[in-house]
């Protein structure tokens, strides 16, 4: 009997033995948690789509097409010059392998992802391209070039661990449930964010006031069509409505915008006439559309104004377009204007309808599509149709990471041929002017020498993209942002990690937008984007997460049968502008035909039935966007889509009781019952499988979330991701900079079945704690919580941080790393080894594993070497250098990894040291339950003083009752009840939301369980004071709640300073906790201090602890800048108080006329140059902020003089101290109005 396959069915029970078995013997057939892999699959599948035989890259190469270059004089006419035309034949990617130069690895030459993590390098494979070129009309020749190393997505088709079973994965040093979907760049795991973009191949009616800025007469009305080529790159076409009724066609090409009259595009596409265009827009003369005078007026104007161009035939128009766009498109000189015009239409106009080898039929498809767009635009302007909301998921799709990656690769390949090769050829021809393309030398040099000159390392560019997330692209790839495409997949805990893959971003462009419309939670998102799982704060509503059942299509489904079926069901090619007469039927942005609104409904229903039934060749994942005709609603029609990048989600189709996949465009016009009882006969067509399908993976982990106030569930989604949990089981082979781990992870008693299905027991995120809700000591005020000291001593909430320090002796060079070894680890052979360094270091100069490291301890020793005559590396200076541990926390050396080079021919140059830092909970650390109830541990209360129940139970955690009334986290109460009952009966409690209702309440269900266990039905218990032993007056609500320890720990937070490092220019303290900087006392803090009248504190903060500085100033001219110390010719560089003079107020002796030294009043002083001066003695020392002096200097540089009025009252006064009485002082003020001291003086 064959062994049974690993079961993948899970319910909410503990399954202790089954899990134990999975751990001990990882399955050799398949993972027990397929849902996890499904969650990540869109990423992997999108990458897989790139390098298939008919993959995206192959299609992109077809779009790049052949490039032709000419030799000889550039300014000469193309006639008589030799030509070389070149095209990509194919591009291949290889799995990650050792370079052939490495002769040492015999058995296994694969580079596994785990090795890349450990060695802090990139997981990449060799990328090579095969070119085919022909000189003039010779036979084509082929050659292959390596174009760099391309980062490979883990678990993609080009990854070694693609088909590994969990057992194999463990052997390959991976997690047993390794998901892949990310790249490894310099040892860091990076993922490409999913981006929301406009729905492809669908004319969006837009009202955008900024359209008016395009020029005079432009109105805010427009139709946007994001047209996607077969290779998933896109080109957006926009139609603008002008206030005079005209329409312009706008597109953006290589980051520049171009406007073309739409008539010109129409006339260029097909051989047509005005009547055809008129009838195509309005309808046949006997249709209702002809009565629409609004439309007919404008169409007439459209046709009339175009007459000024005097272009009548298709050939004329194309040649005209070609002439205008020749420099823009960068096409070869050999093409005629007509051909360039054709190229323009191929590359820019509605590229989804025909992109390579465009046929006449495809051009006519484009023609009809533009007519529809104009029709919709006029309907929009007339108010017959509503604007489409580009912020609703209905009109959006997802740009998958792999597709974006492919777009970049395609563009780089294109650049290599068009720009790189052209420059290289030009340079070659300049260097050897005599050589023509037909010469022998050229034939030899072309594949090698000329290509070497180009910037052919495409892999490097992609690695840069992955590591920075910045897009450096000449075309902008039709995207609205240039940075922020990639993020680090942080493995802080598993919840955070998995969330990265389900994260959907709206684009960083929208983050700057002042309006909040883009952030709104719209009903259209139902079932596609989780309403709960979005962060609060600046990314709120822009960074969403997919609902856990939402799937992203990565491949086109076969919809080839649809056009035929549509024709059979009565779709015709004639149409009318009146939408109550005929509506459009579209498939993937191609017009199949038109039918009446009533027919369209029948058509959509029929297709739906066939689709779910699986008959007639209608695929299950086809989206049938049936928009019913309405008065002033969305533009009606049937918009079908079978293409990738769509979101789909499963629901139950009622007529067949079968699973149907629905998309965001069709959903708003469907009636989908949320639960079975809500089905309305005759109206509902679908029902949800489960109401929890709308929640993301994380939101599903919140127990009883339907009992909570909604923001609390959002907070929990945030805090779940900040929890110090278990990042994985392969910690030994991970080298993340910082990893958090909880020592005492437990499985929650209260959980939903999805907890098991997603295998979260492999990555425990918290611990079950006995929680009492009581105001006990006063230390639980304001969200503080008290922890039982004995629980703490038993390891409650104990955690660890793993830090990895990478120490490399190689000089990090941007260009090419130097080959020479100049430093080696270890003590210099001839040097004396100090005993203090041997405390933490071994003989090899590397730290001893297991040793304790404190601040200032040595982490490793190294010395310089240079090669002697025989090539041996010798140390010559006898000096040992040390790397020190700079953190203030005690750590233990956990692992030391010596990292060799890829070639295996280098001595130790890099080591990575993993340090373990124990973090037992300390006062000030943050904890939270799973209901957005976070709190700070304020006290470890001795167990003897803790309250205890009648059964002798002491709480682990005490929280204050005031945490509940305003926050209304009833789910936490229910969890407490359920946890308590579950603990007593040994049950795992199902906490799926929406399972209880008014008749069957959760309180009753768990209350009865508690009652059966001998507890109070309500969960309250009498408790006794631990201090007095008396029974407390009230019964206390005690239960078991799953708690998380958050990563925010006081040890990482505290920041104090009196003196320390300062900014050199201003003298003010530097910023940043790491560098010992200060916290700014800002304007508001200053206001508060002012309001309190705490002048000394203010003085202390703003001056003494900041940029206090003493400076000399001239009283007379009031300047800091003119003072200078005198130089005595006798004393040398001695500085005393009274030797600072104002140069400005002084007079130079040799500039004075008839100097009589004896008559000069005042001392003669000398400056540094030996010039003698007299005067300028009225200087004084003042305390001023350093920033003020800085300002003075800066202003002086701009020619602005600052003059300070120094009050004469505190001038130094010579003579004896004046004795005055208080009264004398008062009277002095009265009489003179000046300072009494001066009067007295």
């Amino acid at each position, binding site marked *: 009997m064959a062994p049974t396959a690993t079961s993948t069915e899970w319910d909410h029970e503990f399954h202790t033995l089954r899990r134990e078995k999975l751990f001990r013997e990882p399955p050799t057939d398949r993972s027990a948690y397929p849902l996890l892999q499904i969650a990540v699959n869109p990423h992997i599948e999108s990458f897989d789509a790139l390098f298939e035989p008919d993959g995206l890259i192959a299609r992109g190469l077809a779009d790049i097409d052949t490039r032709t270059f000419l030799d000889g004089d550039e300014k000469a006419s193309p006639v008589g010059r030799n030509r070389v035309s070149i095209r990509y034949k194919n591009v291949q990617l290889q799995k990650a392998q050792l370079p052939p130069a*490495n002769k*040492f*690895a*015999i*058995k*296994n030459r694969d580079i596994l992802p785990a*090795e890349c993590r*450990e*060695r802090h390098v990139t997981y990449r494979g060799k990328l090579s391209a095969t070119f085919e070129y022909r000189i003039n009309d010779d036979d084509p020749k082929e050659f292959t070039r390596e174009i760099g190393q391309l980062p490979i997505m883990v678990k993609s088709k080009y990854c070694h661990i693609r088909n590994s079973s969990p057992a194999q994965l463990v052997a390959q040093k991976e997690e047993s449930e390794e998901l892949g979907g990310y790249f490894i760049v310099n040892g860091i795991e990076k993922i490409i964010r999913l981006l929301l973009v406009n729905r492809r191949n669908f004319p969006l009616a837009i009202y955008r006031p900024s359209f008016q800025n395009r020029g005079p007469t432009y109105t805010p009305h427009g139709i946007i069509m994001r047209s996607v080529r077969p290779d998933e790159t896109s080109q957006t076409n926009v139609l603008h409505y002008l206030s005079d009724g005209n329409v312009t066609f706008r597109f953006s090409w290589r980051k520049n915008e171009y406007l073309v009259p739409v008539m010109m595009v129409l006339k260029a596409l097909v051989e047509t006439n005005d009547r055809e265009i008129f009838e195509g827009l309005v309808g046949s003369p006997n249709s209702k559309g002809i009565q629409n005078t609004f439309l007919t007026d404008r169409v007439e104007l459209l046709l009339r104004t175009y007459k000024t161009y005097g272009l009548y035939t298709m050939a004329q128009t194309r040649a005209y377009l070609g002439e205008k766009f020749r420099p823009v498109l960068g096409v070869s000189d050999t093409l005629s204007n007509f051909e360039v015009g054709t190229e323009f239409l191929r590359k820019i106009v509605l590229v989804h309808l025909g992109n390579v080898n465009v046929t006449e039929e495809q051009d006519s498809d484009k023609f009809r599509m533009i007519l529809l767009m104009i029709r919709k635009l006029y309907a929009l302007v007339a108010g017959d149709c509503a604007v489409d909301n580009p912020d609703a998921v209905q009109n959006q799709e997802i740009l998958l990471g792999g597709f974006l990656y492919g777009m970049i690769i395609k563009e780089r390949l294109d650049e290599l041929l068009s720009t790189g090769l052209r420059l290289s050829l030009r340079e070659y021809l300049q260097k050897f002017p005599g050589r023509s393309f037909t010469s022998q030398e050229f034939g030899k040099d072309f594949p090698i020498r000329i290509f070497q000159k180009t910037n052919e390392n495409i892999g490097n560019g992609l690695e840069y993209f992955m590591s920075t997330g910045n897009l450096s692209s000449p075309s902008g790839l039709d995207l609205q942002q240039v940075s922020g495409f990639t993020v680090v997949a942080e493995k802080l805990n598993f919840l955070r990690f998995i969330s990265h893959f389900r994260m959907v971003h709206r684009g960083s462009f929208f983050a700057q937008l002042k309006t909040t419309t883009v952030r709104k939670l719209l009903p259209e998102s139902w079932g596609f984007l989780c309403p709960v799982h979005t962060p609060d704060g600046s990314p709120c509503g822009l960074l969403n997460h997919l609902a856990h059942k939402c799937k992203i299509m990565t491949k086109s489904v076969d919809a080839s049968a649809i056009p035929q079926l549509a024709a059979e069901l009565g779709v015709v090619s004639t149409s009318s502008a009146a939408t109550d007469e005929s509506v459009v039927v579209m498939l993937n942005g191609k017009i199949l035909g038109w039918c009446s609104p009533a027919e369209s409904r029948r058509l959509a229903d029929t297709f739906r039935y066939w689709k779910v039934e699986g008959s007639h060749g209608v695929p299950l994942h086809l989206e049938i966007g049936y928009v019913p005709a309405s008065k002033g609603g969305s533009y009606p029609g049937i918009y079908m889509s079978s293409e990738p990048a769509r979101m789909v989600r499963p629901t139950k189709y009622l007529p067949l009781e079968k699973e149907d996949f629905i998309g965001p465009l069709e959903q708003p016009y469907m009636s989908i019952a949320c639960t079975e009882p809500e089905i309305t006969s005759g109206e509902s067509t679908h029902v949800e499988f489960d109401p929890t399908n709308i929640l993301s993976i994380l939101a599903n982990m919140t127990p009883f979330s339907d009992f909570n106030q909604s923001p609390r569930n959002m907070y929990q989604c945030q805090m779940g991701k900040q929890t110090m949990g278990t990042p994985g089981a392969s910690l030994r082979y991970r080298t993340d900079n910082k990893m958090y781990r909880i020592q005492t992870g437990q499985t929650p008693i209260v959980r939903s079945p999805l907890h098991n299905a997603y295998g979260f027991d492999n990555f425990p995120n918290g611990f079950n704690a006995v929680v009492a809700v009581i105001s006990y000591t006063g230390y639980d005020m304001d969200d503080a919580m008290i922890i039982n000291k004995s629980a703490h001593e038993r390891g409650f909430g104990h955690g660890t941080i793993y830090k990895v320090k990478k120490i490399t002796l190689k000089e990090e060079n941007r260009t090419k790393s130097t080959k020479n070894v100049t430093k*080696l*680890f*270890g*003590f*210099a*052979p*001839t*040097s*004396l*080894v*100090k*005993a203090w360094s*041997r*405390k933490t270091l*071994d*003989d*090899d100069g*590397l730290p*001893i*594993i*297991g*040793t*304790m490291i404190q601040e200032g301890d040595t982490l490793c020793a190294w010395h310089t070497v240079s090669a002697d005559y025989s090539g*041996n*590396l*010798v*140390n010559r200076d006898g000096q*040992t250098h040390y790397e020190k541990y700079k953190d203030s926390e005690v750590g233990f050396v956990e*692992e*030391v*990894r*010596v*990292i*060799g*080079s*890829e070639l*295996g*021919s*280098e*001595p*130790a140059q890099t080591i990575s040291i993993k340090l373990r830092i124990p973090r037992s909970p300390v006062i000030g650390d943050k904890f939270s339950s799973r209901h957005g109830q976070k709190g700070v541990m304020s006290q470890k209360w001795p167990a003897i003083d803790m309250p205890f129940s009648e059964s002798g139970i002491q709480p682990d955690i005490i929280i204050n009752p005031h945490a509940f009334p305003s926050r209304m986290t009833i789910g936490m109460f229910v969890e407490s009840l359920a946890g308590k009952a579950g603990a007593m009966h040994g049950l795992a409690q199902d906490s799926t939301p929406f399972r209880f209702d008014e008749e069957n309440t959760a309180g009753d269900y768990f209350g009865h369980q508690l009652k059966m266990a001998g507890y109070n039905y309500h969960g309250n218990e009498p408790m006794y004071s631990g201090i007095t032993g008396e029974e407390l007056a009230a019964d206390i609500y005690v239960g078991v709640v799953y708690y998380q320890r958050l990563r925010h720990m006081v040890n990482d937070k505290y920041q104090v300073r009196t003196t320390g490092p300062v900014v050199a220019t201003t003298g003010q303290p530097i910023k940043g906790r790491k560098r010992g900087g200060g916290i700014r006392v800002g304007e508001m803090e200053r206001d508060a201090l002012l309001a309190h009248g705490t002048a000394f504190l203010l003085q202390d903060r703003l001056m003494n602890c900041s940029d206090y500085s003493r400076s000399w100033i001239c009283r007379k001219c009031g300047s800091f800048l003119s003072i200078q110390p005198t130089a005595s010719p006798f004393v040398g560089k001695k500085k005393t108080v009274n030797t600072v003079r104002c140069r400005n107020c002084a007079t130079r002796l040799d500039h004075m006329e008839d100097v009589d030294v004896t008559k000069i009043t005042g001392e003669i002083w000398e400056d540094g140059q030996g010039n003698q001066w007299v005067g300028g003695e009225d200087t004084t020392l003042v305390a001023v902020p350093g920033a003020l002096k800085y300002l003075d200097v800066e202003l002086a540089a701009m020619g602005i003089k600052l003059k300070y009025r120094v009050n004469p009252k505190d001038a130094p006064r010579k003579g004896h101290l004046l004795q005055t009485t208080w009264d004398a002082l008062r009277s002095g003020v009265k009489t003179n109005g000046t300072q009494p001291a001066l009067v007295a003086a």
Partner: protein
Amino acid sequence: MSREGYQIPTAQSSAPGASSTQVSRADDNMGTTMTYMCGDCGFKFPLKRQDNIRCIECGCRVLYKERTKRMVQFEAR
């Protein structure tokens, strides 16, 4: 291992743990040999300072340092 069974490992030149001597001399040019563990096949082998970093069995490029045989002691509070 019992406390009596514990032996101070006899490292090459100066006995480690001999903290009474303030200064010890580093070894000759070739450096001391320490054993490292291959990150792939787990083979343990000695390596000198200037040796290339690779497993002599399988050519693996990541080596782990072994846990010290010295007594590691610290106050556990």
